[in-house]
């Protein structure tokens, strides 16, 4: 059993307008978009929202995370995508992971660019937790940007704030995921069928419990509370 990549849970639909708008811009002008946050910022949920928006805009989304590959480097992720895409066109082909495993990243990227450019139905790509092992090297981010540019493919990645993304990814759009305020969470609760029928006093009670004395709370805390409320 695997969580469907497109599965976006209601409680993760807290206002992420910045993500949606960035994705819309990304489809208009395919390049590299990074969603940046810490472990508790709901990166995976934001990426799922982005995926939903990409697919709504007609871009089938291929998503590859560090848990989809043996080694979470960009090269192995690109090889995984090649494995996924190439058999569709040539069923008898030898898996690219075998052919290109000892090749330089730039060669793997060039192969993937060719395959993406030749697809009759253009796709979009999401690389989850690009920095799950170490912050990527400049050449890796460069190759990712080249992949987007050469193949005209919208590419999104998620990563933690500890990496210097502004320096690593010149020219990429970056969205820093923010923590939530009461208005964000209230909007989310009102859009959820189980909670929409609650009166304001009851919703305020829940918000008081979630926020305590804080004005903003991490997405992880909000998601955990809201999940429990309807389980």
């Amino acid at each position, binding site marked *: 059993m695997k969580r469907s990549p497109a599965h976006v849970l209601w409680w993760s639909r807290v206002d992420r307008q910045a993500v949606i708008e960035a994705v819309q811009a990304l489809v208009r002008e395919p390049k590299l978009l990074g969603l940046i946050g810490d472990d508790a910022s709901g990166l*995976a949920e934001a990426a799922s929202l982005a995926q939903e928006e990409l697919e709504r805009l007609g871009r089938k989304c291929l998503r590859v995370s560090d848990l*989809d590959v043996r080694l979470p*480097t960009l090269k192995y992720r690109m090889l995984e995508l090649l494995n996924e895409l190439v058999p569709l066109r040539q069923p008898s082909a030898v898996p690219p992971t075998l052919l290109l495993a000892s090749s330089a*990243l730039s060669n793997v990227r060039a192969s993937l660019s060719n395959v993406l450019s030749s697809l009759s139905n253009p796709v979009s790509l999401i690389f989850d937790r690009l920095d799950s092992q170490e912050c990527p090297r400049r050449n*890796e981010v460069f190759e990712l940007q080249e992949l987007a540019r050469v193949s005209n493919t919208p590419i999104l990645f998620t990563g933690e704030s500890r990496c210097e993304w502004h320096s690593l990814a010149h020219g990429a759009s970056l969205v820093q995921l923010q923590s939530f305020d009461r208005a964000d969470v209230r909007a989310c609760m009102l859009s959820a069928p189980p909670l929409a029928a609650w009166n304001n006093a009851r919703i305020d009670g829940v918000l008081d419990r979630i926020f305590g004395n804080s004005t903003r709370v991490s997405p992880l*805390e909000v998601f955990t509370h809201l999940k429990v409320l309807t389980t």
Partner: protein
Amino acid sequence: MTTVTNEASNPFEMAAEIFLSQSSAIVRGGLALSLSVTIEPDQLQALVRRLWPDTALTEVELSELIDWPFVIAGQSGWSMLQPMARVLSTYFRDADQVLFTSAHELLASMEKSRTPSDELDDWFISGRTAYYLAGVDPTVSAGQFGEVFEHAPVVDRTSCRVWLAGLVDRQSHLLGDTSRTVSFFRGFRHYVSGNRRAAAREFTRVLAGEDADIYRAISLHLGALSIRSQMAENVVDMIRQSVELSEKLRLGVNEVMARQSLIWLLLRHGTPKTDLISLAEYNVERSKSLADRNLLGWTRRTYAVMQWLNLVGDTRDHVTEEARSEAPSLLGDLSEALALAEATDDPETVLFILNDRASIFCDLAELEDAEIELEAALDRAGGLGYASRVLASLGKTCGRAAILARSAGKNNLATQFRRLSSGFRRLEDRYVS
């Protein structure tokens, strides 16, 4: 509600408190998952059944578990966000140390029973087994982590070792935060990130211990390379000790790597070239016996360069007839070393070899050929991705080539070399800034 800490102070502790108030099957599934690197859902069900025979993790509960925001899924199975896994595994250990140990034993046993799809898979299985053994016997785990490090795959060796270092980091609370194993792997991560000062600090901690083991052998080498002044007296001594200990412990990869470093260091200390040639030739034979294509590329390059330097001397200003007649053969050896470096995706060695070839062409006053090598180097240097001293070396070769070209009245060529030099300097700036 079960208490994780007296007062939940971070989002994960708060989330853990809520999670631990769920049904026992869900909680037990989460506790078992917190110990796993990755695990397939059916294996998780089996693990829960073995640990708590009265508990069944049903399909419904599995789908409930995957919906928690800290549970993540991929093709290799399920995992848990690390900060949450740390909170839950600590809770598990404090609540029931015996069961906590049994869980690790079972996970290690499940890992060992996997059938590897290839050699690389076999290596990953060994790494994950070492990870689980940390919850059973930290000493055995530490030893196995060292073995796995030494036998990392030839292709993507550094990336594989960084992956392994990540596993050690996740188990640092079980291995001992100040243990030599944890310090070694932290040092290694700093070393490959170019953070030499922090690396030297960690390797010093490893070397403070008495054990003459793999961690000492490798720390002597990498610790020496992390010392700011490479001309310091103890640097050569440390690397010699690393070679000797590696020979004694049969750590072939580190032995060859350390001897490689030793040769280049001794060159700077003015050791006679004939001695260096003998050492380099021996290192080629050792890397052949290890059947390690990556090391063979390194060692063949060093052997060829030492022979050339013996022919032309340190100043490289007079190329004898003998040197001129040997040059094609040595350039050919370097080409073969280049092919080996390319075949094992080692861009830094590729650049060093192109620089060596360009330098030899400069020595021979064949400046057009030197330009071809340096153009190829600049083309590939864009893919290096990190600051390396090879960029400075390439810049110096360009500078020397420009002077030689101008002296020979080849002003257009001199301009090309200056352009190349600027290109390498720009890359250095980009990587360092």
